[in-house]
C-alpha cells in the first residue's frame, strides 16, 4: 500500500477522492430529501442518527475535505513535480497521507453522525479530529515543500505559485479559525463568530481557489497546445488574491453584532476580489482565442469552460451579497447554500473532473474507458447543477422576501412557499449524483479494462 512507485500517491488519492465524493454527495441528496419529507427517519431506531442536523454537516465535511481536498492533494502530487522538473519528494509519505485522509474522513462521518458537533460552520469536527486534520495538511505540506526544495526548474510557473501559496497558508487559516485547536474554546461570543468566518471563507480563498485556479492554468495549455495569454497578468491575480482575501470573512456577519468597521472592511475587500477574477477570466479567454473549436471535442475542456462561467458568477454574486441591503434579504436563506455550491461544485469540482480526466490516463497508462460516459457525466452534471443553483437562488429570494415581509408571523408560509424550489433542488441533486455514478463507473472500468493510453496514433505511454 505504501508504494514508492512514481505517481502512485496521486493515483490513489484520486481513487479515494471519488469514493468520498460518492459518499458525501449521497448524504447531500439525503439531506435534500429530508427537506421535503422531514419525518422520513422518525421512529426508526438506527435512522435516528440520520436527522437533518447530523446529515448536513457530514455532507459538507465529506465533500469539502473528503472529495475536493482529496482530489486537490492528488492534483498537487501530480502537477507540482511536473512543473519543477523533479519527482515527488516522497511517494511513500504521499500514500501514507492518503490512508490518513481516508481514516480521518471515516472518523468525521462517525463523529458527526453520533452528534459530536462543535456547531461552527465547516468546522464541526471535534477537536481531536481538528488536530488530525492539521497533521494531514502538514504531511501534504512537507511533501510539496520538499519537492520545491529539490526542484530542478528554477523559474516558477503560475500554477506552482498558486499551489505553493495554498499549501503554506491553509494550515494557518485552519488553526486560527478552529479555536487554535484547543478543547476549551478560548475565543468566545462574537469573536468566535468572527474567527469562524475568517476560517470559513478563507478556506475557500486560500485553499479551494488557488489550487483550483492553479490547476486551470496547468490544464488549459495542455488541452489546446498553447501557452497562457499572459504570465504577468496571472501573477497580478495571484498576488491580489492572497492580499485581498484575508479580511473578507466578516461579510458573512453583515448586519450582525460585529463592529461596523469590520463589516465595511469585509465588504470593500469582497468587492476588490473582482480584480483577481478578471485576471483569471481574461487569461482564460485570451488563451482560448483561436482554439475554441477544441471545446467541441474535449469533455475536460467543456468542464473547464463551464467552471469559468460559474467562477465568474460566484465572484459576481459574492460581492453583491456582501452589500448590506442585499445581505439583509439573502442572509440565512437558501440563496447562500446555492452560492456555496456554485463555488465548490460548479467551479472547483468541475475543475477537478477535468483534472482527473486529464491526469488519470497519464498516471495509469490507460485511456478513459468510455468517451460517451464522459459526455453523459458532463451534461448530467451541468444540467443538474444549473437546475439546483437556479432553484436555490430564486428560492432564496422568495424565502428572504417572506421573512422580510412577515417576520415570524407567517413563518410556516415561507416553508410552504419553498416546496417547489426544494423539489427542483432534489431533482437537480438526483441528476448530479447520477452523473457522478457514471463518472465513477467510467473510472473503475478505465482502471480495470481501459486501452493503452495513446498520445497520437501509434504512440503509447506506459504508467
Amino acid at each position, binding site marked *: 500500500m505504501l508504494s514508492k512507485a512514481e505517481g502512485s500517491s496521486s493515483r490513489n488519492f484520486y481513487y479515494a477522492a471519488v469514493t468520498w465524493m460518492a459518499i458525501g454527495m449521497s448524504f447531500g441528496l439525503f439531506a435534500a430529501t429530508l427537506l421535503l419529507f422531514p419525518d422520513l427517519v422518525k421512529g426508526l431506531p438506527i435512522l435516528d442518527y440520520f436527522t437533518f442536523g447530523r446529515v448536513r454537516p457530514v455532507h459538507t465535511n465529506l465533500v469539502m475535505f473528503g472529495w475536493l481536498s482529496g482530489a486537490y492533494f492528488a492534483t498537487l502530487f501530480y502537477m507540482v513535480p*511536473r*512543473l519543477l*522538473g523533479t519527482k515527488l519528494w516522497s511517494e511513500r509519505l504521499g500514500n501514507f497521507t492518503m490512508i490518513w485522509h481516508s481514516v480521518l474522513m471515516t472518523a468525521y462521518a462517525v463523529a458527526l453522525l453520533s452528534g459530536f458537533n462543535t456547531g461552527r460552520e465547516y468546522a464541526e469536527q471535534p477537536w481531536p479530529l481538528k488536530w488530525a486534520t492539521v497533521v494531514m495538511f502538514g504531511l501534504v505540506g512537507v511533501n510539496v515543500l520538499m519537492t520545491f526544495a529539490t526542484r530542478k526548474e528554477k*523559474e*516558477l*510557473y*503560475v500554477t506552482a505559485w498558486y499551489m505553493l501559496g495554498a499549501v503554506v497558508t491553509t494550515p494557518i487559516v485552519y488553526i486560527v479559525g478552529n479555536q487554535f485547536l484547543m478543547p476549551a474554546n478560548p475565543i468566545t461570543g462574537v469573536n468566535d463568530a468572527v474567527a469562524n468566518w475568517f476560517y470559513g471563507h478563507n478556506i475557500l480563498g486560500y485553499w479551494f481557489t488557488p489550487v483550483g485556479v492553479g490547476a486551470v492554468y*496547468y490544464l488549459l*495549455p495542455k*488541452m489546446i*497546445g*498553447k*501557452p497562457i495569454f*499572459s*504570465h*504577468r*497578468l496571472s501573477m497580478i491575480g495571484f498576488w491580489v488574491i492572497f*492580499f485581498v482575501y484575508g*479580511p473578507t470573512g466578516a461579510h458573512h456577519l453583515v448586519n450582525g453584532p460585529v463592529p*461596523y*468597521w469590520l463589516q*465595511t*472592511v469585509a*465588504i*470593500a475587500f469582497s468587492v*476588490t476580489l*473582482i*480584480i483577481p477574477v*478578471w485576471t483569471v477570466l*481574461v487569461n482564460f479567454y*485570451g488563451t*482560448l*482565442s*483561436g482554439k*475554441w*473549436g*477544441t471545446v*467541441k*471535442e*474535449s469533455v*475536460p475542456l467543456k468542464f473547464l469552460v463551464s467552471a469559468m*462561467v460559474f467562477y465568474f*458568477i460566484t465572484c459576481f*454574486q459574492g460581492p*453583491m451579497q456582501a452589500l*448590506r*441591503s*442585499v445581505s439583509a*434579504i439573502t442572509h440565512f436563506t437558501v440563496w447562500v447554500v446555492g452560492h456555496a455550491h456554485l463555488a465548490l461544485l460548479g467551479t472547483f469540482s468541475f475543475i477537478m473532473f477535468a483534472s482527473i480526466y486529464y491526469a488519470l490516463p*497519464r498516471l495509469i497508462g490507460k485511456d478513459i474507458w468510455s468517451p460517451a460516459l464522459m459526455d453523459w457525466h458532463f451534461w448530467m452534471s451541468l444540467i443538474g447543477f444549473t437546475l439546483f443553483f437556479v432553484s436555490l437562488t430564486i428560492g432564496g*429570494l422568495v424565502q428572504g*422576501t417572506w421573512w*422580510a*415581509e*412577515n*417576520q*415570524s*408571523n407567517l413563518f410556516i408560509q415561507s416553508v410552504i412557499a419553498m416546496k417547489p424550489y426544494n423539489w427542483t433542488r432534489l431533482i437537480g441533486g438526483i441528476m448530479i449524483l447520477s452523473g457522478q455514478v457514471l463518472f465513477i463507473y467510467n473510472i473503475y472500468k478505465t482502471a480495470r479494462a481501459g486501452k493503452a493510453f495513446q*498520445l497520437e496514433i501509434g504512440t503509447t*505511454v506506459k504508467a
Partner: protein
Amino acid sequence: MRTVKLLARSATVAGFLLVMAPRIASANHLSGGENDQMGLYGGIALVVGFAGLLGLLGLVPARLRAAGRRWGKWLLAAGVVILAGGGYHVARLGSVEQALGGDAYGRMATQQIFGTLAVFGLFSGVAYWLSKRTGVLDMGEKVKYIIMDNGDPAERTASRTDRPGEHRLMLIPFAAMGVLALSLTSGVLYVVLHLAANPSHVPGPDEHQYHNHGQMPMPAGTP
C-alpha cells in the same frame, strides 16, 4: 514611463485624500445605517479603472492594444475620479447620520480603517520588496513556456486547429455569464424595490417588541 509614474502618484494622493478628507463622512459610513452607494461607486470605479490598467499595460487582445494604450490612462483616471467623487457624494448623503454619530466614534472607526490599511500596506510592501530582491518580478513571459515542454504529454486535442466560424463558440460562455449576471441583479433589485414599495409589510412596533426583547407573553405555567 513618466506618465505611469505620474498616474501612480496621483492615484496615491487621491486615495490618501479620499480617506483623509471626508473623515466624519467615513465615520458615518462606519457607524451604521448607511446606504450601499459607496459599494456601487466602488464597483464601477474598479471595473473602469482595472480596464484602463489592463489597456495601459498592454494586457488586452492584439487588436485592442493600440486603443488600450491610448485610452487606458483616461479610464484609470476616470476610475479614480468616480471613486473620489462617489466618496464625496456618499459623504454628503451621510450628513444626516453625522448628527447622530459623534466625532469621537468617527475618529475611532477611521483609525481602525487606517490600522487595517497599514497592516495590509506593510504586508504588501514587504512582499513586493522581497519579490524584487529575489528577482521573481523580473521573470518575464518566457516562464509561461515551461508548461509546454515539461515532459507531460499534451492532450490529443492540442494539435487541433479551428475551423472557420468556430471562434463564435466563445459567445456561449459569454452569453451564459451575461444572462446569469443580469438575472441575479434584476432578481435582487426586484426584491429590494418590492420591499421598499410595500412599507405596510414592515412589522409594527408590537411585533418588534416580541422579536427583539423576548417579551412575548408566555403560556401559563411556563417557568
